[in-house]
């Protein structure tokens, strides 16, 4: 059985959101970082090219997660799910590469 605006619930209140300004600033930062990454890909950074590109990508994903996905306002139980998955992926990808690179 479901209820529609019953007295126990009260009238649905506006959900807390970061506000349009936060979204606009995050979007602007994402565009600037995208342009930076694209430009740097032609700068012949050699072995540093990949780490720099991935570092910029990490910052961009952090912006998306923290502000677009509102991770910054989530309770700890919700953050654990997201952060654990990312840590496992980092572990999986880095150890896979290390395995290949250290074979004799």
């Amino acid at each position, binding site marked *: 059985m479901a209820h529609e605006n019953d007295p126990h619930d009260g009238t649905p209140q506006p959900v807390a959101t970061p506000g349009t300004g936060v979204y606009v600033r995050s979007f602007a930062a994402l565009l600037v970082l995208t342009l930076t990454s694209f430009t740097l890909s032609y700068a012949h950074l050699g072995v540093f090219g990949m780490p720099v*590109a991935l570092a910029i990508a990490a910052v961009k994903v952090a912006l998306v997660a923290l502000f677009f996905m509102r991770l910054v306002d989530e309770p700890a139980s919700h953050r654990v799910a997201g952060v654990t998955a990312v840590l496992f992926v980092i572990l999986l990808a880095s150890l896979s590469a290390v395995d290949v690179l250290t074979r004799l």
Partner: protein
Amino acid sequence: MASGGTRREAHFDSLERQAGAVRFGMWVFLASEVLLFGALFALYASYRATWPYAFAAGVAENDAVLGTTNTVLLITSSFLVALGTERRAHGHSRAAARLVAGAAAIGVLFLVIKSHEYLAHFASGIFPGGRGAHFDHAPAGSAIFFTLYFATTGLHALHVTAGIVVLTFSAVQLRREKLAPHALDAVALYWHLVDAIWIFLWPLYYLARG
């Protein structure tokens, strides 16, 4: 003030707790999605370490301008959905519907560009599984690169397709004022993850030429 679609199920003692459960369930689902793509990222790391030159050459074959255009498109689409959740949270369902429909339309544009890229690869003799004339004289590892490229970007494109379907349905429901804020939140979380995954795929398959 539209509050349509905001229903409290009997097993929740408040709408706030229900919305929290929806978000938590969605985060756990997204974590499983991250692990799914994580296996493909691990393969990339492992194979790139094995065939660094073939992978760099493979990346150089991809059109960085088209890849970057798609990155900008998905970021913009994600931004529109975020604005949509903001509008819906304040009861403006119809404004949210327009923003979410715009996000879905941009998703379609993303797929059009991706399809164009695939067709260009096929025309150059590059097919999944190392099939095609391109691989007759390509360095070892080139077939692996492009197979992984098709598998990973293809899986991502499937996620984009699913996202477009869900966003379109959400826009219709918002237009009819029958979608609750927490339901749109769940859809938005999924779409943001699709964006976040592409943000990592883009440098790996379009920028890392060195």
